[in-house]
C-alpha cells in the first residue's frame, strides 16, 4: 500500500479557472520546463430526449480512486521523461460549462507532453472508479457512460 504517498486528487465542486491559472504560475520557478500540456474536462449541456443536462454529480470510491491516480502517476513518470504532473477531479455537483477534470503535464520538450497527457487522460477514464450522474432540468437523471 502506498497510503503515505497517495495524494487526494478530489476537489469539492467545479475546478475554477483561477485555480488552473495559479497552478500554471507555480511552474515559473521550474526553468527546466519547456512545454506544458493541460487537459480540461468540461460538463456538456447535452440534450437527451428533448431534456438538457444541467449538471453532473460526481461520486467516487475515493480511497481506491486515489490509489489508482497514484498508480497512474507512477506509471507515467516511468514511461515518459516528464518534469511534473498534476491531476484534479471534481466530486459533487459540477454545472454545465464548468470544469470537472484538470490534468497538467510538464516536460523539457513538447513531444513528450503530448504523449504523456493523452496516456494519463485515457488511464483515468479507464481505471479511476468515478461515477457521473447526469442531472436534467426537470430533476430526473441518467448515469453517465464514457465513450
Amino acid at each position, binding site marked *: 500500500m502506498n497510503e503515505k504517498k497517495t495524494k487526494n486528487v478530489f476537489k469539492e465542486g467545479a475546478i475554477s479557472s483561477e485555480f488552473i491559472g495559479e497552478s500554471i504560475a507555480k511552474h515559473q520557478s521550474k526553468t527546466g520546463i519547456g512545454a506544458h500540456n493541460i487537459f480540461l*474536462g468540461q460538463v456538456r449541456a447535452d440534450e437527451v430526449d428533448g431534456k438538457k443536462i444541467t449538471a453532473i454529480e*460526481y*461520486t*467516487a*470510491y475515493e*480511497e*481506491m*480512486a486515489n*490509489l489508482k491516480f497514484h498508480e497512474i502517476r507512477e506509471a507515467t513518470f516511468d514511461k515518459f521523461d516528464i518534469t511534473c504532473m498534476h491531476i484534479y*477531479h471534481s466530486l459533487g455537483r459540477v454545472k454545465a460549462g464548468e470544469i*470537472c*477534470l484538470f490534468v497538467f503535464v510538464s516536460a523539457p520538450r513538447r513531444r513528450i507532453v503530448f504523449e504523456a497527457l493523452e496516456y494519463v*487522460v485515457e488511464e*483515468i*477514464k*479507464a*481505471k*479511476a*472508479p*468515478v*461515477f*457521473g*450522474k447526469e442531472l436534467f432540468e426537470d430533476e430526473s437523471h441518467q*448515469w*453517465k*457512460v*464514457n465513450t
Partner: protein
Amino acid sequence: MNLESWIMKLNIKYFGMLAELTQCSEETMVVEATTIDELLEQLFDKYPGLQEKDFQVAQDQQIVLKENNITASELALLPPFSGG
C-alpha cells in the same frame, strides 16, 4: 487455504447506479461464502435487479475476478467508470 465456505462479516460498498438500486452506499452482511461469485449469488437474492447490471468487484481496492476467493472484509461493487 480452506475452500469450505466461511461465515464472515463483510462490509460491502455500492457506487453510482448500484447504490441507487440497493438504496444504500454500504452495508455490513454476514455471509457464508468462499468466492466472490458465491457472495454475488446472495446479493442477487437480496437485490434481484443487480443481476442485470454491468459491474466489477473490487477487493482491497483492486479489481478482482468473480472466481476469486474472498480475502478481505471490504468489497465494493463498481458500475462502469465515468470520470472526467
